[in-house]
C-alpha cells in the first residue's frame, strides 16, 4: 500500500497545486515542494521502520515475496491484469533519485515559471507520479501504462512553458517515445500471448512471464521490441535526435526531470525487462548493443564539442554519458552493472544541476548562446564556482560520483571486450574537452561588455541550497559509494543468475 500511496500523494498533490492557484499564485510552488518532501519523508520513514530493511537478503527475481515491498490487487482480471507494484534495491534507488530530483525541479521552477503556475506544478507532480509508477510497476500492462501516461504532463510542460521552438520539440519528443512504445506494446502482448498458449492463462505479471518458453526467433523479435522502446528513451545513438530538441526547449524544471529522471527509465527498463525476460536473445545481441553504446559515447562527446547553445551541449553530453549505461548493462557482469546503476544516479544529479545553471543563465541573460557569454565568473562568482564543480563532476573527476560510475563500467567492460573499453575511454577525453570548453566560454575568458548592464544577480539562498544538496550527493557517491553498491548488489546478483 505504501507504494500506491507514494503515487497517490503526488497525483492528489498535483490537483491541489492546480486548484491553489486561485488562492494565490505563489501557492502552487510551495504546495508542490511540500508534497514532494512529504512523499520523500513518508517513503524514508516507512523504509527505516521495516525490520528486514537492515539485512537486505538476496531477492529472487521470480519470487516477489523476497523483495523489499510487494503489492498486488486485481484490476482487469479478464486479461490477468493487476495492479502489481514491487520494490527491490534498484527501484528503491530510482525512487529516491526521483523524489530528490523532483524537489530540485520544483526549486528550479521557483522563479522560472511565471504564467499558469498551478498547471505547471501539477504537471510536474504528475510526471513524477508517472515515473514512480514506471520504477515500481511489475505488471507489464501497468508498466506500459505509466510509461505512456507520464509523457502527457511532460508534453504539456514542454509545449506550454518551453522556449522558442517548443511546439516542434514537444511533438518530436512525444512521437519518438510513443512510436517506440507501440513496438513495446506489441512485444508485451506477443509475450503474453506466447505465455497464454503455453500455460492457458492470461497474465501480465512480470514474475509469471519470466522464463516463458519460446522459440529462438520469437524471443529475438520480442526482445527487439523492448530494446527499441528503451534505447529511444535512454537515448542511444542513432535514436537520440529527439533529446537535444526536447532538453533545449523545455523549461528548466522540465529539463531537470527529463535528463535527471526520465532518461533513467530507459536504463531501468533494460536492466529490469529487456535482459531478464529474454536472457538468451539479449546475450546474443549484446555486441550490437555495446557497439551502439560505444558509438553513442564518442558521437555524443564529439557533437557536444561543436555546440554553441549551453543547454544543447549538456544535452549531447547526456547522450555520451548514457552510452556508458548501455555499455554497462550489456557487458552484463557485476562490476559493469554496478557502474551502470551508479551512472544513473550520478548523472541524474550532475546533469540536473547543469541544467539548473543553464536555466538560471537564461533567466538572467535571456540567451543560451555561449558566444554571447564570457567572463560571467566576474559577476557571479558563486554560480561560477558551482558550475565548475558540476562540470568537473560531469567530466569524471576522481572523488565524485560520475568517476566511480564510469570507472566501474570500463573495468567491467574490459573483462568482456577490451577494445570496446578502449573506444569508450576515448569518450572520457573528449568529455573533458567539451566540459572545460563549456566552462571557459561562459564563465571564464574575456568579459563580454554587453553583459555588464544586465544587472546580473548571483545565486541566492534557495539556489545555493538546492545546489548544495546535489553537491553533497555527488561527493558522497564519489568518496563513499558503498551504500549505493550495497543496495544494488543483491539485486544485480540475482539478475545475473537469470542469464546463462
Amino acid at each position, binding site marked *: 500500500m505504501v507504494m500506491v500511496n507514494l503515487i497517490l500523494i503526488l497525483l492528489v498533490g498535483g490537483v491541489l497545486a492546480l486548484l491553489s492557484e486561485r488562492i494565490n499564485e505563489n501557492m502552487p510552488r510551495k504546495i508542490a515542494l511540500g508534497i514532494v518532501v512529504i512523499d520523500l519523508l513518508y517513503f524514508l520513514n516507512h523504509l527505516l521502520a521495516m525490520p528486514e530493511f537492515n539485512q537486505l537478503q538476496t531477492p529472487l527475481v521470480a519470487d516477489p515475496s523476497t523483495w523489499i515491498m510487494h503489492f498486488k490487487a486485481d484490476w482487469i482480471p479478464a486479461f490477468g491484469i493487476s495492479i502489481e507494484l514491487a520494490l527491490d534495491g534498484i527501484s528503491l534507488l530510482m525512487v529516491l533519485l526521483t523524489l530528490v530530483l523532483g524537489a530540485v525541479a520544483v526549486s528550479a521552477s521557483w522563479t522560472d515559471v511565471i504564467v499558469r503556475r498551478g498547471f505547471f506544478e501539477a504537471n510536474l507532480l504528475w510526471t513524477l507520479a508517472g515515473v514512480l509508477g514506471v520504477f515500481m510497476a511489475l505488471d507489464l500492462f501497468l508498466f506500459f501504462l505509466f510509461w505512456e*501516461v507520464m509523457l502527457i504532463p511532460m508534453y504539456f510542460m514542454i509545449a506550454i512553458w518551453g522556449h522558442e521552438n517548443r511546439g516542434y520539440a514537444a*511533438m518530436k519528443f512525444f*512521437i519518438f517515445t510513443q512510436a517506440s512504445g*507501440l513496438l513495446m506494446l506489441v512485444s508485451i502482448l506477443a509475450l503474453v500471448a506466447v505465455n497464454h498458449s503455453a500455460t492457458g492463462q492470461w497474465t501480465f505479471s512480470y514474475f509469471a512471464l519470466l522464463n516463458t518458453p519460446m522459440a529462438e526467433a520469437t524471443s529475438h523479435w520480442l526482445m527487439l521490441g523492448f530494446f527499441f522502446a528503451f534505447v529511444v528513451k535512454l537515448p542511444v545513438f542513432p535514436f537520440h535526435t529527439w533529446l537535444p530538441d526536447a532538453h533545449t526547449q523545455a523549461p528548466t524544471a522540465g529539463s531537470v526531470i527529463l535528463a535527471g529522471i526520465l532518461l533513467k527509465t530507459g536504463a531501468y527498463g533494460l536492466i529490469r525487462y529487456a535482459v531478464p525476460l529474454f536472457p538468451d536473445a539479449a546475450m546474443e545481441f549484446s555486441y550490437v548493443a555495446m557497439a551502439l553504446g560505444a558509438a553513442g559515447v564518442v558521437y555524443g562527446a564529439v557533437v557536444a564539442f561543436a555546440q554553441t547553445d549551453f543547454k544543447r551541449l549538456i544535452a549531447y553530453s547526456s547522450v555520451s554519458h548514457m552510452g556508458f549505461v548501455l555499455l554497462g548493462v550489456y557487458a552484463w557482469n557485476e562490476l559493469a552493472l554496478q557502474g551502470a546503476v551508479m551512472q544513473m544516479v550520478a548523472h541524474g544529479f550532475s546533469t540536473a544541476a547543469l541544467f539548473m545553471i543553464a536555466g538560471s543563465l537564461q533567466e538572467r541573460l535571456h540567451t543560451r548562446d555561449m558566444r554571447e557569454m564570457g567572463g560571467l565568473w566576474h559577476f557571479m562568482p558563486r554560480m561560477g564556482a558551482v558550475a565548475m564543480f558540476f562540470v568537473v563532476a560531469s567530466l569524471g573527476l576522481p572523488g565524485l560520483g560520475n568517476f566511480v560510475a564510469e570507472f566501474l563500467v570500463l573495468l567491467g567492460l574490459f573483462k568482456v571486450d577490451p577494445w570496446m573499453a578502449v573506444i569508450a575511454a576515448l569518450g572520457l577525453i573528449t568529455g573533458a574537452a567539451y566540459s572545460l570548453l563549456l566552462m571557459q566560454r561562459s564563465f571564464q575568458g574575456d568579459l563580454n561588455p554587453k553583459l555588464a548592464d544586465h544587472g546580473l544577480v548571483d545565486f541566492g539562498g534557495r539556489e545555493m541550497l538546492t545546489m548544495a544538496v546535489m553537491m553533497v550527493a555527488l561527493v558522497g557517491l564519489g568518496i563513499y559509494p558503498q551504500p549505493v553498491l550495497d543496495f544494488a548488489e543483491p539485486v544485480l546478483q540475482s539478475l545475473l543468475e537469470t542469464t546463462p
Partner: protein
Amino acid sequence: MTVNLLMALMPILMLSLTAVVLMVQASIKRDQLVAWFITALGLLLTLWGAGYARDFTQPVTALLIVDDWGLFFTTLIVTAALITLILSRDTFSTEGERKEEFYLLLVLSVLGAVVLIQSSHMVSLLLGMELMGVALYAMIAFPEKGQLSLEAAIKYLVLSACASAMLLYGFALLYATTGDLSYGGIGLKAILAYQQNPLILMSGTAMVVAGIGFKLSVVPFHMWTPDVYEGAPTPVTGFLATISKGAVFVALTRFFVEGQLYEYHSLMTALAAVAIASMLVGNWLALKQENIKRLLAYSSIAHFGYLLVVLIALAHESAEATLIRQAITFYLTAYILTTLAAFAVIACIAGEDESKNQIAAFDGLFWRRGIQASSLTVAMLSFAGIPLTAGFFGKFYIISVGIQSQLWWLLGSLIIGSAIAIYYYLRIVFAMTMSAGTATKGQCSASSVAQDVLAILLLILVLLLGSWPQPFIEFAGQL
C-alpha cells in the same frame, strides 16, 4: 406473426411510432420545440424498447435477427442519436426558421441504422442502408444556406447511389451462384458454388464488400469523406461518423461471419490491402489538414482500417471467435464515444461558422473554455490510443487479436499509422495550449452549461471505459 416477434421488434416499432407522431404533429401545429421533445421522448422509449426486447431475442422472419449483440449496438446508437439531438438543438434553433423536419429525418435515419444492425438478409441490409442514407442526404443539405453543405449532399448522394448500384449488382451475382440471399444461406451454399463458379461468386462478394466499404469510407472508397464531413452541419457530421459508420460495420461483421467470407483467401488478401491502405493513407492525408472536420474525416478512415484488422483475423485458425467479437464491440464503442466527445466540443466551439472549423480557431482553448478543451484533449488522446482512455483499450484488443492471428503486416501498418496519427492529434492539443492572444474567440450560444455537462459526461465515459474496462469486458463477453 406472434406477439413475441413484435416484442422483439420493440426498438424498431418505437422509432417508427416516433416518426409517425412527428408527421402528425407537423400537420397539426408546426412547433420546433414540441418536435424536439417528441423526438427526445421517442428515442428514450426506443432505449427502453431495446432493453425490453432482450427477453425476446430470436430471429424475426428471414430478414431480421434480434440478438443481444444487435440490441447493445441499438442502445449505443440511439444514445448517440440523443446526443446528436442535443447538439442539433443549438445548431438549428437559433435561426428562428422552421426546422422540425430535421428531427423527422433524424428519427428515420436512426430507424435505418437499427434495421441495418439487425439485418440477417441482403434485403434488410439494403433497406436499412438506403433508409439511413436517403435521410442523411437531406440532413447534410439541411442548412440550406451554404453551398458547401449542398455540394456535400450532392456528392454523397451521387456516390452513394453508385455504391448502392454496386451492392445490388453484387446481390444479383451472389443470388445467381448460390440461389440464396440470407447471410446464413450464402454461407452454406457459397462453398459449393465457389467450386463451380469461383469468378462470379468472388466478384459478387467483392462488389457487396465494396458497396459496404464505401459507407465505411475505407481506401479506395474514401473520396467523399472529407468533403461531406466538412460540408455537413457539425451534429450531422457527428451522426455520420458514429451512427452511420457504426451500424454499417455491425452489418458487415454479420455478413462476414454468417456468410463465412473469411474462408476465401483472395477476398481476405484484398481486404488486407484495403485495411493497410486505409491505415496509411487515412493517417497520412490527415497530417496536412487545417480544418478539424476534414482532419477527423481522414482519421476515421484510418480507424476503420484498424477495425478491418479484426475481421481479417477471423480467417486464421488460431483466432478466438469470442475475443474477436469482444474486440469489435469494444473498439466500436470506444470509437463512437470518442467521436461523440470530439464532435460535441466542435459543435460547441465552432458551431456552423466555417472559419471556426480551422484548427487555428482552437488556439488557447484551455484558457478560455477549460472543460471543453479537456474533453477534446481526452478525445484526441483516445483516438491516438494513449493508455487510460477507451481508445487505448480498443487498440489493445486489436493488437491482441492481430498477434493471435499473426497478422504481422497489418500490425506493422497499424504501428506506422498510429505513429503518424499522434502528430495530427497532438497538433490540436498543442493549438489549445497556446496563449490565446490573437485567436478569434469561439463562443458557445446560451446553453453553455448544458454543453459543459455533456462534455464532462463524455469525458468521464471515455476515461472510465479505458481505466476500468472490466465490467464492460464482462458485459461484452456475454453478448
